[in-house]
């Protein structure tokens, strides 16, 4: 088929053009008319360090994320809405990334979000409130060939975080906090969390995420609340993990770093099945906790601010169902389920106006 196109025997039809345009992340217009508008080449930047660590599915989802940010920025402009956060409120000065510095920065971030010292709760909601776009993708569970997350300072939409929604909730929480670390302190660059990356910026974001989600003083206070000096029982780890809404594995690391469990206990706790134990302790499990299955991803991938704007734009008549479907790439019926609160007019009526229109 491609050979026929190359030799001018046949030319691609509209659908084939759409598929080619999707592959090359160009508009059909750019593909047919040639030329390419100038914009930052986020795709090249995001894929630059991928190597073999990104499969076709991960690539496709990143491309879709970038395409979404482009159309989202156009949508914001059309509605007269400002972009999200465009500058980091803090910065990391070289030489200030010790454990103590990270702890201090996590405290600064918590102050910024007015969080106090308790559990973070919903970092996606926080990000949304402070103008950081969080877009979820179903990009697979094998982190050796996909990404867990990325941070992108988009030139028109503002700060944006891509989050792999097919990992466990604890992992997602950690990834989101990690990307928030980039956004709050290193917002001048794009970062992609490929498997095994250990650059200084990634190490900082990891340390920040751990301290941000489960601050050492809060963790110590919680253990004290159990009237313990050391955690010797996996049940307590599960209670703490649930309290701080982090993964069991991360809670173990945090407890060990805070000197609240011994190395021997750490090894023992690692052999525990945490979801099974949590269920026995009476916690209700999120269906996603035993890894989200690749299934139907509809409106849930989109950032909350975008969804709020989409609903209000629809109800104010600024956008139609078809327009919303075209912008999101979602099925008409999914958009209808999300947007339409009112049915259509209830009678066909007015047969007399036929002459006027037909």
């Amino acid at each position, binding site marked *: 088929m491609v050979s026929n196109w190359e030799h001018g025997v046949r*030319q691609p*039809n*509209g*659908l084939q*053009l*759409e*598929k080619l345009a*999707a592959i090359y992340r160009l*508009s*059909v*217009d*750019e*593909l*047919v*008319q040639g030329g390419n*508008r100038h914009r930052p080449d986020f795709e090249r930047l995001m894929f630059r360090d991928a190597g073999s660590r990104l499969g076709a599915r991960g690539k*496709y989802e990143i491309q*879709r994320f970038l395409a979404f940010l*482009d*159309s989202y920025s*156009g*949508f914001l*402009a*059309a*509605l007269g809405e400002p972009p999200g956060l465009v500058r980091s409120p803090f910065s990391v000065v070289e030489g200030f990334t010790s454990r103590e510095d990270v702890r201090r920065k996590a405290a600064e971030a918590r102050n910024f979000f007015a969080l106090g010292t308790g559990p973070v709760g919903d970092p996606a909601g926080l990000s949304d409130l402070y103008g950081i776009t969080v877009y979820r993708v179903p990009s697979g569970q094998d982190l050796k060939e996909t990404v867990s997350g990325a941070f992108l300072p988009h030139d028109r939409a503002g700060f944006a975080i891509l989050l792999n929604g097919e990992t466990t909730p604890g992992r997602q929480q950690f990834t989101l906090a990690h990307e928030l670390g980039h956004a709050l302190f290193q917002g001048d660059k794009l970062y992609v969390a490929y498997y095994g990356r250990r650059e200084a910026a990634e190490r900082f974001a990891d340390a920040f995420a751990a301290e941000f989600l489960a601050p050492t003083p809060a963790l110590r206070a919680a253990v004290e609340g159990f009237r313990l000096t050391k955690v010797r029982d996996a049940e307590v780890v599960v209670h703490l993990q649930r309290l701080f809404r982090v993964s069991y594995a991360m809670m173990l690391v945090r407890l060990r770093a805070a000197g609240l469990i011994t190395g021997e206990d750490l090894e023992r706790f690692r052999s525990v099945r945490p979801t099974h134990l949590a269920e026995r302790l009476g916690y209700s499990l999120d269906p996603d906790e035993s890894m989200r299955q690749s299934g*139907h991803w509809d409106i849930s991938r989109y950032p909350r601010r975008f969804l709020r704007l989409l609903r209000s*734009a629809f109800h104010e*008549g*600024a*956008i*139609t*169902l*078809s*327009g*919303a*479907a*075209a*912008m999101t*790439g*979602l*099925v*008409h*019926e*999914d958009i*209808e389920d999300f947007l*339409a609160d009112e*049915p*259509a*007019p*209830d*009678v*066909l*009526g*007015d*047969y007399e*106006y*036929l002459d*006027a*229109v*037909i």
Partner: protein
Amino acid sequence: MPSSEPVLCDTTPLRYFALAERFELLVRILGGSVRTPRQVLDPIEDFAVSPSLLSEISQSEQYWSRKAQTPRGVAAWNRLRALKSCQDIEICDLQQGEELQRYAELRSDDLPQEHGLAAPLGRSKSAVMAIASTRGWGVVIDDREAHMVLAAVSPGTKVFTTRELLLHGAGPGGILTKIEAELVYADMREWGYRGAFRCGIADHPGALVVSC
């Protein structure tokens, strides 16, 4: 038939006449054949592509297949699937040259801004508009934004809505009574049809104010 020229249908009339199980009415109202572009309905579709690249009827099919544990879901799924083997549908492909060029223009990233839209036009609407405006055909499209763009880029193109087709079918010398038309319309609404924009948005510049 509402127009002496051929009429090209967007997804909405196909979807809701089919869901209301009255697709034969659409065929009869349009004079024996329903023309639509492949972006709306592709009888030989490859389901291995990304869902966002499927024809719009196939996307609807997938939506209802996910709800196929209910009788309603199964019914909808079957009715939409049946369109692919319907002999009364004529699939129209974009022709090389002017049609493809116009399609590309309608799919351009700049189009929303040029026409004051908050969102781009979808593939099916762009294809319907590109083909119809080039060939001098009429169109059946319910979307307000598509009507606005069409009025600007091809003011001579005759535009109908799904609702107007039903009204036409129930008009003088029509093929169904007003009560039947109301019932079909009620069924469509039951399946999620929201009516054409002309009904309810009276302040739109091109709107025909009707009592609903």
